[in-house]
Each structure stands twice: as structure tokens, then as C-alpha cells.
């Protein structure tokens, strides 16, 4: 299996993206920001289409869209009107409504760009759309795989670098703010980093995989480990394990798409931990 070059590329990119998703997903679950993570995965698609319509490299459009939306959501989540008592405000309906309305609009823009592109190359843009939404991890070139891996690892290290204050700010925002932790800046920085990870993940494995790898391994880790740093490590490890097993499964069964296999395993794990505890 490792003799195939496409498999080595898939493993390299998949491992790094899974690690990034597992670690940042642990914080996303803790902060109740799963919907924001979902929205980031969705806006990658219009971002790539907009870049294609403008004739720019799609990766730039994708990264710009996810990071910009991440920062906007981070800023919006702590807008005075939506601030909740204690809980991060995306727990409140106002935050979720704003996220939902905004990303539907951005997806509407995606269809607008699709219609613009469609005049020239209907089949090409549809195919690209499918690839953006669902990824094609087995189709990664060596250069793409290395770039994705580097971006994902970099974002993971940055999340880990702010892990301690971010944890404080997520668990007890008011106490953290009183102690001089910059709660709001941390929230924006976290969603910005999540945007970088979303862009990397979408490029390599599709928006589909992003949500599953953010939610399922991290939620399992939250159920299994009570101590924060053990939970973060476990979330990363579970995400990587699901990715490896899913890739091996998809390699063995050619008709099974790798992203479907990875998600099915991760969600099965989540369902199992829910049932056990």
C-alpha cells in the first residue's frame, strides 16, 4: 500500500489535516462553535469559485474566504448584543442566526460565480465544485500534499501555542478577562486559525471531511478524557487513527470514496462513546 505514491501523499496530507482538525475541534466543541466550523467549510466553495471567476489561483480565493469569514465570525460572536453570561455566545440564538444567514448569502454568491463561470465551462466548474465540496485525497500531487501538510501543521502549532489562555478564556471568559487575558482577541485568532485549517482541509480532503473530523473525534475525546491536555492529545490521535483506517479501507475497497470511509469511522466512534458514557 505504501509503495503507491498517491497513497503516500494522501497519508502525509491526511495525517496533518486530521491532527489539525482533532486539536482545533477539541476547542471548537468546548466553545460550542461547531456551527461556525461548519460555516467555514461551506464558504470555502464560493471562495474557490470567486477566484476561478476572477482568474486568480483558487487556493488564494479559498484561503481568503475562510480566514475572512473566520475572523468576521470571531468578531461577531463577541458583539455586545450577543454576549451571553458565561457561555461563548454562539450558544445563543442570535449568533447562530447571524452565522446561518451570512453563510447562506456567501453560498448564494457561490452560485452567482458558478453561473458566471458556467457560460464558459459548465462541466469544468461543476467538477471543480464537486472536488471542492468533497475533496479528492487520492488525487493529491506531491507538492500539494506537502503544502497542505505544512499549512495544517503550522496552524496546529499556533493553536497549541495559544492553548493555555484559550482554554482559560473558553471555560471562564469573565475571570480570564479580569486577569488580563484578551478574550476577544483570542476568540478571533482561534476562528482565523480554524479558517486556515478549513482552507487546507478543503483543498485536500473536501469540506465534508472538515466538519466530520472537527466534530466526531473531538466530541469522543471530550467524553473519554476529563483533563484538558489529555483530551486535546486524544482528539488529535483519534482523528489521525480514523484517517489512517479510512484511507486503508478505501484503498482496499476501490468503490468506497476515502472521505466517506473516514467520516463513517469517525462518526461510528462518536456514536460508540455516546452509547458507552
Amino acid at each position, binding site marked *: 500500500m505504501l509503495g503507491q505514491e498517491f497513497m503516500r501523499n494522501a497519508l502525509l496530507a491526511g495525517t496533518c489535516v486530521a491532527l489539525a482538525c482533532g486539536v482545533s475541534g477539541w476547542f471548537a466543541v468546548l466553545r460550542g462553535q461547531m456551527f461556525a466550523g461548519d460555516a467555514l467549510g461551506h464558504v470555502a466553495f464560493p471562495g474557490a469559485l470567486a477566484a476561478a471567476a476572477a482568474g486568480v489561483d483558487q487556493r488564494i480565493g479559498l484561503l481568503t474566504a475562510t480566514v475572512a469569514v473566520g475572523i468576521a465570525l470571531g468578531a461577531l460572536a463577541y458583539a455586545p448584543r450577543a454576549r451571553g453570561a458565561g457561555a461563548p455566545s454562539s450558544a445563543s440564538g442570535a449568533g447562530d442566526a447571524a452565522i446561518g444567514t451570512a453563510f447562506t448569502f456567501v453560498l448564494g454568491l457561490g452560485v452567482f460565480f458558478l453561473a458566471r463561470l458556467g457560460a464558459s465551462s459548465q462541466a469544468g466548474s461543476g467538477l471543480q465544485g464537486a472536488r471542492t465540496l468533497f475533496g479528492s485525497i487520492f488525487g493529491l500531487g506531491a507538492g500539494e500534499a506537502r503544502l497542505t501538510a505544512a499549512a495544517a501543521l503550522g496552524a496546529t502549532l499556533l493553536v497549541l501555542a495559544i492553548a493555555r489562555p484559550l482554554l482559560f478564556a473558553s471555560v471562564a471568559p469573565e475571570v480570564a478577562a479580569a486577569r488580563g487575558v484578551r478574550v476577544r482577541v483570542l476568540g478571533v485568532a482561534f476562528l482565523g486559525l480554524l479558517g486556515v485549517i478549513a482552507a487546507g482541509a478543503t483543498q485536500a480532503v473536501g469540506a465534508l471531511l472538515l466538519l466530520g473530523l472537527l*466534530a466526531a473525534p473531538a466530541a469522543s475525546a471530550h467524553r473519554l478524557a476529563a483533563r484538558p491536555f489529555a483530551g486535546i492529545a486524544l482528539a488529535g490521535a483519534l482523528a489521525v487513527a480514523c484517517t489512517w483506517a479510512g484511507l486503508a479501507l478505501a484503498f482496499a475497497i476501490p468503490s468506497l470514496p476515502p472521505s466517506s470511509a473516514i467520516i463513517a469511522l469517525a462518526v461510528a466512534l462518536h456514536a460508540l462513546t455516546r452509547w458507552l458514557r
Partner: protein
Amino acid sequence: MRTELAGPTASWNLASDLSQLLEYHFMVNALLAGSVAAVTAGLLGWLMLVRHETFAGHTLAVMAFPGASGAALLGAPAAAGYYAFCGAGALALGSSTQARQGSFRQRSAWIGSVQALALAAGFLFVSAYGGVLGDLEGLLFGNLLGIADGQLVALAALAALTLALLLAIGRPLLFASIDPDAASARGVPVRALASAFLLLLGIAVGSISQITGVLLVFSLLVAPAASAQALTPRPVLSLALTVVLGLLVVWLGLGIAYFSVYPPGFFVASVSFAIYVLARASAALLPRRASDEGDERTLDVQPDELVA
């Protein structure tokens, strides 16, 4: 459809624009179906926001993707796939309905997992079907301009059924949504109501998304209700405003789309977003009553009023 319409031009005479637009049967069907969808989705969406179930609503809308692709794979009618997956999704989400603060995180993660699994299943069906995601735009934004009379009747019948059921459980549901602890202390079956609401939402989303697509149904669920709730905390007024804004979104979106070369989905989503931004901006700018300051609750309802 577009080609025979090459170049409808808008003039400043709105009456002649409107009569030009209503000459086409497909436009009349689109307006009627859009109106039914806007009213149903608006009212359900209003409750969805009160219950903080936005992410669940989005997930139910996404269920249409495996529904459509699974039905195509099996050769079954698409409608059967939509209802099967939206219903199954509602049951899966309903398996974790606690209103406790601590379990909110786990619930949101579970919704994410369910949605990811639905997408993964849909992708599996699509690749088993032949690897071509045929009509991506149709799936996402529907085909509002190509609605047959039969579809319109089916949509209206299901909408009437959904709204009748919603009316039947409306009062205890609102009580359970606003103050779950007090409601369960008074013997209201909070968990059963939560599952029932998700099932109603799933069925409505399944029927509406067949014509509006996966994303547009969500836009109609969230934007009008969120705008109305930003504008007024009075429940009856904001419900009425939700319906009015929903109809406005659909009519404006379809009207603009008729005179444009771009798809109606884009305009409906844009008008929704514009109305929402305006509503939030005016809510932020207008002076609010002192009692609203720092109040997390978006509705001005005393739970006691709801006890019959």
C-alpha cells in the same frame, strides 16, 4: 427556459413589469410555491430560533443531499429519498435533546457528526451512481422556475398538514422552548415535544427543499425569523413580521431574477441577507427599552401566560 425569455427588460412602470411577469405560468407557480415555502419555513424557523436549533435545522436541510442521491441510486422517486433522510435525520438529532447548558457542547458536536455522516453517505451514493454530481446548482438552490402543478399541490398539502400539527402542539411547545425546567415541572412532555418539533421541521424541510434546494430552504428558515426577532420582542408581532418578511424575500428575489440572467437562488439569498443586515442595524441604532438591556432572551413572553 432561459432562451425563450431572452431579454425581458424591466421598466420603471412596475404595474406593466408585474403583468409581464405574471403572463408566464411557470412564474405564477414559482411565486405560489415560494409563498407557501416562505410561510411554512418562516413559522417553523421562528420556533427553531427560539429553541436555538439553527444548526439542527441546517443539518436537516443537508439531509436532502443523501436523500436525492440515494433515491437516484435506487431508482426510487426523489421525494421518497428526501422524506426518508429528513425523517431519519430528525430522529437521529432527536436522540439527544437536553436543554441543559452543559450538554449543549456535546449536542452541537453530535449534530455536526450527523451532518458529516449524511454528507459522507450522499457522496458515497453519488460516486456509486457514476461519480458525476450532475446538477449541483439544482441541489443547492433548487429549480424554482420549473415547478409542475402537481408539485405545487403536494407542497401546499404538506405545508397545511405541517402547520396544522404545529398549531396543535404550539402552546406547550412554546412553553417548553422558553422555559424547559418550568414546563417539565408542570408536566409538559419536554423531550417528546423536542423530538416532535424536529420531526415536523424535518418533514417540512424535506418537502420545501425539493423545490428550493438545500441552501435556500435554510435561508427561508433563518433570515425572516431572525430579522423579525431582532426588530421586536413581542411574540405575535414578530411572528406576523416573519411571514411578511418571508413573502417579501421570495417575491423580491423572484421578481429580480426574472429580469436578470442570474439564478433566483442567488437573489433570494441576497435579499434575505440584506433584510437581516438592515434589521440588525436598525435594532442596534434604535433606542431599546430599558428592560431589554442585557436581556439574553429574544422574546418578551412570560412562561405563565402559556399555561392554559
